[in-house]
């Protein structure tokens, strides 16, 4: 009965065995994937890879603190908060390193290239980049800028086979205290997952809908599924 189970799933099936253990090649393939995921978590974002922007820092001073204190990654440092002044904006675009700066360096610039032409007529502040940031840091930035909605591009937690997934989060009327149920998320943006053009299309659709209906989150999600 020679069926190649690998034809049906990306799971690590049909690995063979050495005694009761993994064969050497499979053991090392796993170790390599884990090493890449670990490197992605600890890679520092190099802002030079990103378009012109205002550089901000969360209240978490370094990666070790960031991993232990999610609350600090959700708000700005005092110095960074002082850099932001309210304007009259339809949306603010924010990039945060999150758990994979690699994802941001690779996929945020092409995603922005695909998105910005669709936002003609939108009043946008300059791009803001946050180091040691989590999703909710966008709420404080959006509020301080006086933006009607905030879109956050962030590196997702690396999976064993996807160390560089970019996530996109949209929040209407951002302010600290917003919950995840009040956001919309587009996940796994990368060439092997959701490609830039389709991701930009979906994000633009959600931005238009959020602006028209003045909300985001669960209520908006239902209709967006009809895409």
């Amino acid at each position, binding site marked *: *009965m*020679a*069926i190649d*189970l*690998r*034809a*049906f*799933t*990306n*799971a*690590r*099936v*049909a*690995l*063979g*065995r050495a005694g*009761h*253990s*993994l064969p050497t090649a*499979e053991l090392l393939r*796993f*170790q390599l*994937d*884990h090493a890449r*995921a*670990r490197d*992605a*978590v600890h890679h520092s974002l190099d802002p030079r890879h990103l378009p012109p922007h205002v550089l901000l820092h969360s209240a978490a001073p370094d990666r070790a603190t960031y*991993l*232990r*204190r*999610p*609350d600090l990654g959700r708000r700005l440092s005092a110095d960074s908060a002082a850099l932001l002044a309210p304007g009259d904006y339809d949306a603010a675009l924010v990039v945060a390193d999150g*758990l994979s700066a690699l994802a941001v360096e690779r996929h945020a610039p092409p995603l922005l290239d695909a998105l910005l032409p669709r936002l003609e007529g939108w009043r946008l502040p300059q791009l803001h980049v946050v180091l040691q940031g989590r999703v909710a840091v966008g709420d404080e930035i959006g509020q301080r800028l006086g933006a009607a909605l905030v879109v956050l591009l962030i590196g997702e*937690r*690396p*999976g*064993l*086979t*996807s160390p560089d997934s970019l996530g996109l989060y949209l929040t209407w009327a951002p302010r600290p205290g917003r919950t995840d149920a009040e956001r919309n998320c587009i996940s796994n943006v990368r060439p092997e997952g959701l490609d830039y053009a389709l991701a930009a299309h979906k994000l633009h659709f959600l931005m238009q809908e959020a602006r028209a209906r003045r909300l985001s989150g669960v209520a908006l999600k239902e209709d967006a599924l009809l895409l």
Partner: protein
Amino acid sequence: MNLRELLAKASPLRSGDQLAGLAAETAEQRVRAQMQLAEVPLQRFLNEPVIPYESDEVTRLIVDTHDAASFAPIAHLTVGGLRDWLLSEAADGQTLAALSPGLTPEMVAAVSKIMRLQDLVSVAARRRVVTRFRTTIGLPGRLATRLQPNHPTDDPRGIAASVLDGLSYGNGDAVIGINPATDNVTVVHNLLRLLDDMRQAYAIPTQNCVLAHVTTQLQALQRGAPIDLVFQSIAGTEAANTSFGVNLALLDEAWQAARELRRGENVMYFETGQGSALSANAHHGVDQLTCEARAYAVARRYEPLLVNTVVGFIGPEYLYDGKQILRAGLEDHFCGKLLGLPMGCDICYTNHAEADQDDMDALLTMLGVAGVNYIMGVPGADDIMLHYQSTSFHDALYLRSTLGLKPAPEFEAWLDSQPALSPNQWLLT
């Protein structure tokens, strides 16, 4: 210091208690608190709930179901005295089983805080908890696995491929359980049919489960889906359970519905994990180990077939590294077993935790020695849907062969009847 604060200060170091602002501030303060905790009479736990009776239904469950007669033999002890007694020859399996209804979660959490890992292993190893559905799980000399064939799009062929692969490695005797990517009644119904068809086609003595929200499973049940076990994630406070969308009344309803199907004896499957109450901002200033033990009070109300702590899934802000995950896994197993639960463990970690396969090997081996009822079997230890690393089919074989453990007896007999699946031949590899 009240009991709640003392329990928190005495907890071995972990990031979640630090995040909550409950942990001891120095190493010395922690050990001083442990010394103080060791002097606390067990009786005090009955008089001083860590979360008020009036405001939390889990506290009410703990207080209202406490069995004074079972407690009587240890009623005169302190926490330290309980540790000494648990490690003594007097505390054999039968005695520990009779004691379970007299123990509260807070008592077992407290004593675990002043035990070393070898203590946690040595006591738990004596306390066998045996449950039954189509297989018998938890017998001495046995180790079962949950076969976890998850797929990012719930693709039936992808799931079937992982199930076949796992069966070929002798995995799946605790349950074949899918975490669905989509919590939707049609998806759940279809996956249950797939698993039930496979079970019947190969006459596999095991039970199936699709780990959607309990309300989704109840809807599928009403549509006639072939439900064996009803699953739910639970936590140790009413508020945390509310954040999971459950309460005791709903779980009562689910338990009754599952029993009415008359497909097996123990019909519930629960998952827990340290940190879930804090994550839901529902911990009431109680440390995460004590909250976790309180979740076991919820579980034991329903005489479950399976309970497992998903120990490293929640991330480094609750359990920072391999050392903290190792200890938490052994604490959870110990606390659950002492309270009378059929404890398994999802020995696992995420990629942002300071942990790797070596840490998992250490916990796996120690839990095997401690007599864990079951572990997870994930293809190559890599869950491609939930994006974390658990234990592999191979890991179960390692533990069984190294410690001389066998699968559940009904499953073992089935494996022996399948020439292509016998231990020395492999179906598909």
